[in-house]
C-alpha cells in the first residue's frame, strides 16, 4: 500500500482549472488552452499511477477523517485506474471536439460550459479513485450537480423540462434509495471501505441484503437500468460534447462503476453467490438490454437512438459483473473502456453532422456519406465496436462477456447477449447503409466532400482509430481488468 | 367529591391564577380589537406574576426585613426563616413586571404603526384590507 498525494492531484487537476477559465473568459483561446493544459496534466497524473498499480500495488490518500470508518479518502486500484484512464484520455479528445462544436454553432455561455465540464471531470475521477462508499457518494452527487448546467445549457423550455427530469431521476434516486442504503450498511457494519471480500457478509439477513442491493442498483440511477433510465434520453438536449463524454462515458459509467463497487467492494463475490443475488441483478440487466435495444430501433433522432443504445450497453457491463464469474467480470470491466471509445465516436459523429448540416434525425441523413465520408467512416467503426464485431475493441469485451456467461453456466444469458447484438446491428448498420448507398436527400450533398470544421470531425476519427487499435492491443485496459478480477478471486 | 373540597379551598391561589390566565388567553384569541388582545396578554402575564407572589406567602409570615438582626444587639441565631415570607419570588416578579411593561410598550408601538397604515385596529378589517391589496 502506497501513500501518495498523486490521486488527489489527479482529482483536483481539472477543478483547479476553473478559476483560470473564469479569469480568462474574455480570451477564448487562452481559456481553452487552460482546459487543454488541465486535461494533459490530469492524464499524466493518472497515467503516472499506472506502474504502481500494474505492479500489484494500490495508492491511497486520506483527506479528512469525517466519519469513523468512512473517511474522505482516495485509493487507486486496478478497477479505478481503468475507469480513470478512459475518462481522462477521452477528456482531451472531447475538449478539442468541444471547441469545434461550440464555436461552430456559436453557442452562448462557453465559459460556464468549460467550467462545469472541468468540475464534472474532477468528480468522475473522484468516483474512480474513491476508497469508500461515502467518498464515492460525495463525488457522485458532485457530478450530478455539475452536469445540470451542462444538460440545460440551451436555457430554453425543452432544456428546462429535461433538466427537471434529469434531477428528478438522478437526485431523487440517490437521496431516496442510495443514501438510506448506504447509511443502513454503515449502521450494520461500522465501515464503508471497499474491500475485495466485501463488508456485508454475516452482518445482514439475506432479505436485507437483497433489498439493499436493489436500493443500490436503482439508487445509482446514472447506470440507467430500467425503470430509472429515462433521464438519459432527456439529457440529450445537452450540447453534443456533453452527450459524448458525459452521457456515453463519464456520467453513465460513474453509475455503472458505482454498481461495480457495490458488487465487488461492499457485497463481495461470495456473499452474492451464496444468496443467488448475482443472477437476480443479471436478469434485471438482461431485461434492460433487450428492452432498450428494441426502443432504440424505433428512434429517429440520432442522439436519442444512441442514448437508448447506451442504456442497453450499460447493462452489458452490469450483467458481466453480476455473472460473478472471472471472465464475465473481466468482460464487464473491459466493456467500460471499449464501449466508451465506440460510443463517444458515434456521438461525436452525430454532433459533427449537426454542425455541418444542422440535421438531427436519421431519416434526414440519407446519402450523407457523399458529403461527410470520413465522419461516416468513423461512425461505421464506432457502430462495429458497439455491436461487438472485429476488428474493433468492442469484440474483445463482448467475447469475454460471452465466455463469462458460459463460465457462469447460463446459456439463457448468452442468448440474450447474441439477440441484443443482432438488435444493435439492426439499429446501427442501416444508418451507415443509407448514408453511403442511397442518393442524397439534399442536392448540395452530391457536390462533394464538406465535413465542417476540422475540430468537429477529426476527434471522432481519432477515437475510431483507438477502437481499432484496441482490438489488436487491448492494453493496458485488459491487463487492469484481469488484475482487478484476479484480486477478487483471491489470485 | 369531598376530598376535593379542601384541595379547592386550600390551594385557591392556583385556581385564581389559572382562571385569570384563561381569561387573558381567551381575550388574546377571541377578541378582534388589537388593543383588547394586548389587554388580554397583560392579564395573562399578571396571572403568572400573582402565582409567583402567592407561592412566596405563608401563614403568619411577615415581610422579609430582619427585625432582630446582628446590628440590633442580638445573635444571628435568633433569625427564624419561618417567620418571614419568601422574598425571592417577589424579587423575581419585580423583573417580570418590568418585562411585562416593556412588552406592553413594544406592543403599543406596533399597534400605532399598524394603525397608521390601516387606519383601524380591528383585526378582521386589517385582514380584509390585506386580502384586497
Amino acid at each position, binding site marked *: 500500500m502506497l501513500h501518495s498525494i498523486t490521486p488527489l492531484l489527479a482529482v483536483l487537476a481539472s477543478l483547479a482549472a476553473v478559476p483560470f477559465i473564469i479569469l480568462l473568459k474574455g480570451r477564448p483561446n487562452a481559456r481553452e488552452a487552460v482546459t487543454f493544459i488541465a486535461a494533459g496534466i490530469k492524464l499524466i497524473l493518472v497515467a503516472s499511477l499506472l506502474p504502481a498499480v500494474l505492479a500489484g500495488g494500490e495508492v491511497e490518500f486520506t483527506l479528512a477523517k469525517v466519519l469513523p470508518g468512512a473517511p474522505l479518502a482516495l485509493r487507486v486500484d486496478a478497477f479505478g485506474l481503468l475507469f480513470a484512464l478512459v475518462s481522462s484520455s477521452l477528456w482531451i479528445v472531447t475538449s478539442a471536439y468541444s471547441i469545434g462544436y461550440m464555436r461552430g454553432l456559436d453557442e452562448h455561455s462557453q465559459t460556464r460550459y468549460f467550467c462545469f465540464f472541468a468540475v464534472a471531470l474532477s468528480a468522475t475521477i473522484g468516483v474512480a479513485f474513491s476508497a469508500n462508499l461515502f467518498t464515492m457518494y460525495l463525488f457522485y452527487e458532485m457530478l450530478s450537480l455539475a452536469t445540470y448546467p451542462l444538460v440545460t445549457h*440551451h436555457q430554453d423550455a425543452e432544456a428546462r423540462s429535461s433538466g427537471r427530469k434529469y434531477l428528478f431521476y438522478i437526485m431523487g434516486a440517490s*437521496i431516496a434509495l442510495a443514501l438510506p442504503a448506504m447509511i443502513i450498511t454503515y*449502521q450494520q457494519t461500522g465501515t464503508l471501505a471497499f474491500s475485495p471480500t466485501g463488508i456485508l457478509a454475516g452482518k445482514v439477513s439475506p432479505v436485507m441484503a437483497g433489498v439493499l442491493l436493489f436500493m443500490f442498483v436503482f439508487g445509482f440511477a446514472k447506470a440507467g437500468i430500467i425503470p430509472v433510465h429515462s433521464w438519459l434520453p432527456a439529457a440529450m438536449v445537452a450540447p453534443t460534447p456533453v452527450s459524448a463524454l458525459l452521457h456515453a462515458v463519464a456520467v453513465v459509467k460513474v453509475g455503472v462503476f458505482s454498481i461495480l463497487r457495490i458488487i465487488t467492494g461492499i457485497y463481495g463475490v461470495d456473499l452474492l453467490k451464496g444468496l443467488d443475488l448475482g443472477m437476480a441483478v443479471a436478469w434485471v440487466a438482461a431485461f434492460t438490454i433487450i428492452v432498450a435495444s428494441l426502443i432504440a430501433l424505433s428512434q429517429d433522432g440520432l442522439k436519442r437512438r444512441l442514448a437508448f443504445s447506451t442504456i442497453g450497453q450499460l447493462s452489458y457491463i452490469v450483467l458481466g459483473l453480476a455473472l460473478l464469474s472471472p471472465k464475465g467480470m473481466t468482460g464487464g470491466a473491459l466493456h467500460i473502456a471499449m464501449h466508451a471509445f465506440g460510443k463517444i465516436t458515434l456521438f461525436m459523429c452525430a454532433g459533427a453532422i449537426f454542425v455541418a448540416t444542422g440535421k438531427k434525425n436519421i431519416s434526414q441523413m440519407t446519402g450523407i456519406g457523399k458529403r461527410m465520408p470520413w465522419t461516416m467512416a468513423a461512425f461505421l467503426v464506432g457502430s462495429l465496436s458497439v455491436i461487438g464485431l472485429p476488428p474493433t475493441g468492442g469484440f474483445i469485451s463482448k467475447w469475454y462477456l460471452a465466455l463469462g456467461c458460459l463460465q457462469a453456466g447460463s446459456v439463457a444469458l448468452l442468448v440474450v447477449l447474441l439477440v441484443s447484438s443482432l438488435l444493435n446491428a439492426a439499429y446501427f448498420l442501416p444508418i451507415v447503409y443509407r448514408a453511403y448507398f442511397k442518393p442524397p436527400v439534399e442536392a448540395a450533398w452530391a457536390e462533394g466532400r464538406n465535413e465542417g470544421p476540422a475540430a468537429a470531425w477529426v476527434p471522432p476519427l481519432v477515437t475510431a482509430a483507438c477502437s481499432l487499435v484496441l482490438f489488436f492491443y487491448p492494453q493496458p485496459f485488459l491487463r487492469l481488468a484481469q488484475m482487478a478480477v484476479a484480486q477478487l478471486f483471491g489470485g | 367529591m369531598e376530598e376535593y373540597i379542601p384541595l379547592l379551598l386550600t390551594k385557591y391561589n392556583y385556581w385564581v391564577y389559572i382562571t385569570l390566565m384563561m381569561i387573558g388567553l381567551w381575550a388574546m384569541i377571541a377578541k378582534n380589537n388589537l388593543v383588547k388582545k394586548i389587554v388580554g396578554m397583560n392579564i*395573562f402575564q399578571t396571572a403568572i406574576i400573582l402565582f409567583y407572589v402567592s*407561592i412566596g406567602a405563608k401563614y403568619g409570615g411577615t415581610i422579609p426585613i430582619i427585625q432582630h438582626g446582628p446590628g440590633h444587639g442580638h445573635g444571628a441565631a435568633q433569625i427564624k426563616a419561618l417567620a418571614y415570607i419568601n422574598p425571592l*419570588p417577589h424579587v423575581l416578579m419585580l423583573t417580570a413586571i418590568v418585562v411585562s411593561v416593556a412588552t406592553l410598550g413594544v*406592543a403599543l408601538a*406596533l399597534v400605532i404603526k*399598524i394603525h397608521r397604515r390601516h387606519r383601524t385596529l380591528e383585526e378582521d378589517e386589517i385582514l380584509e384590507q390585506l386580502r384586497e391589496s
Partner: protein
Amino acid sequence: MSEQYPALIVITPLLAALLVSAAGWLRPRLCFPLALAGLGAAAAAATGLLVQVLATGPVTYRLGGWEPPWGIAYYVDNLNAVVAALVAWVALFNLVASYRAVMTDYPEKIGPYYTLYVLAVTGMLGMVVTGDAFNLYVLLEITSLTGYALIGLGGGRAPLASLNYLFLGTIGASFYLLGVGYLYIVTGSLNMADLAKLLTPLYGSLALLAAFAITLVGLWMKMAFFPLHAWLPNAYGFAPAPTASLLAPLMTKVMVYVMIRIMISVFTVEFVLQEVLVGQLVVWLAVAAMVAGALFALGQRDLKRMLAYIVVAEVGYMVGGAWLGNRLGMTGAVLHLINDAVMTFCVFLAAGCIYQKTRGTSFEDLRGLFKKMPWTMAALAAGAMAIIGVPPTGGFFSKWYLIRGGLEAGHWGFVGALLFSSLINVVLFFRVFEIAFFEPSGGDDSHGGHGGHEEHGGAVALAEAPLSMLLPLMAAALGLIALGLATGPLVQKLILPIIPAGLG
C-alpha cells in the same frame, strides 16, 4: 482576563448597546463602528472561551462573586461554548453585511436599529451562557422584545406580523416562566446545576412532569416547533432583510439549545426517557413539522417566505433528533444545530443580497439572477446544497447522524420524513434556480425560447451586491464546507463528551 470570558461575552455587547444608543443621538456615524467593536469583542471572548473549555473542561463563573445557588452563575461546557461562538460570529458577520442594507432602508434610524441589534445578540449570548433558569427568562425576553422591534421596523405587513409574533412569543415565554415557577416550588432553587441535584429524588412527582411539560411547550412556542409555528413565516418573511438573517439562523437555534440544556442538564435523560412517556409522540410531532414545513414551503411564491418554512422543517430535524432517545440522535441534533445556523444564515443573507439589488424576493424578482448576481447565486446554491444535504457540506453529516439515530431507534417515520424533506428541498431550491437560470430578467416574454442567445455578449450587466455583503456571504458558504470537512473532530472532541452517558 481569560477567566472573565463568560462575563465579557455578555457585558461587552451590553455596554456597546448603551454606547450605540447614545451615539444614535449624538453621532449616528459612530453607531456602526461601536456595534462592530462590541460584537467583535464578544466574538473574540466567545472564541477564547471555546478554546479554554476545550482545553480545560467546563467553566463556572459567579457573577459578582456570589456563590451559587444564591448568586447567578454562568456555566459553560462544550455545548454552550460552541453555540455562543456560533451566535457571536454569525451576528458579527451579519452586522457587517447589514451596513449597506440599513443605510439604504433606514438611514434615519441607524441608532435605534443597531441598539436593538446589539441588544438582541446580548440576550442570545446571555441565554446561551447562563446557568440560571430565571436569568434565562429575562435574557429570553430581552432578545424577544428587541426582536419584535427589529421585525416591526420593516414596512408593509411587518408590524402586524411582529405583533402576532409578540402575542405568541409572550405566551411562550410566560409558559416557560410558569414552568420555572413550578420547579422553584418543588426545589426552592433556580440554579440549573443545583436544580439537577435537587430534582433527582423527586422523579415520579406529577408536579415535576407538569413543570417539564409547561417549560417545553413554552420553548417550543419560541422555536416555532410544529404546530406552534404559526408566527414564524410571517415574522421572518416580512422582516427587514438584515433582521431576518440575524433572527432566522440564531433565534430558533438558541431555543433548541435551551431545550437540549433543560433536557440533559436540568432534568436528566433518564427522566426524559423513563418518566416522560411521550417521547415517541414528540418525535412524531417532529415528523409532522418536517413534512408540513416542506409542503407549506412548496406553496410559497417568495424566496424569504419559502426559506422561513424551511426553518420550520429544520426545527423538526433538531427536536426530533434530540427526542429519539439515543446517542446518535442527540449528536445529530447538536451537529445540526451548528450546521443549520450557518446554512440558514447563508441562504437568508443571500436573500438579503438579492433584496438589496432587486428590491424584492418574490419569485418574479429572481429572473435572470444567475447572470446578474453570479456570486450571490453561487452562495445560495451552496446553502441549498447544505439544506438538501449534499456532501461535503455540513448539512449532509448532521442528516447522516440524524438518520442513523432514527434507524437505531427503529423510528422509520423519522427516517422517512428526513429523506422526504431532503427531496422536497431539492424541488424547492431547483425551482428557484430554474427561475433564476432560465427566465430572462425584466423580460415580459418569460418563455422566449432562446433568451440565452439574446444575452450573448454580456448584454445583461453584472449587478452584484456590495462587497460588504458578499464577503460575509462567501464566508458563510465556505464555512458550510469547512464545517462538513471538520465533522470528525467536531463530533469526537466537541459533541460526544457532552452527550450524557444515560443515552444508549
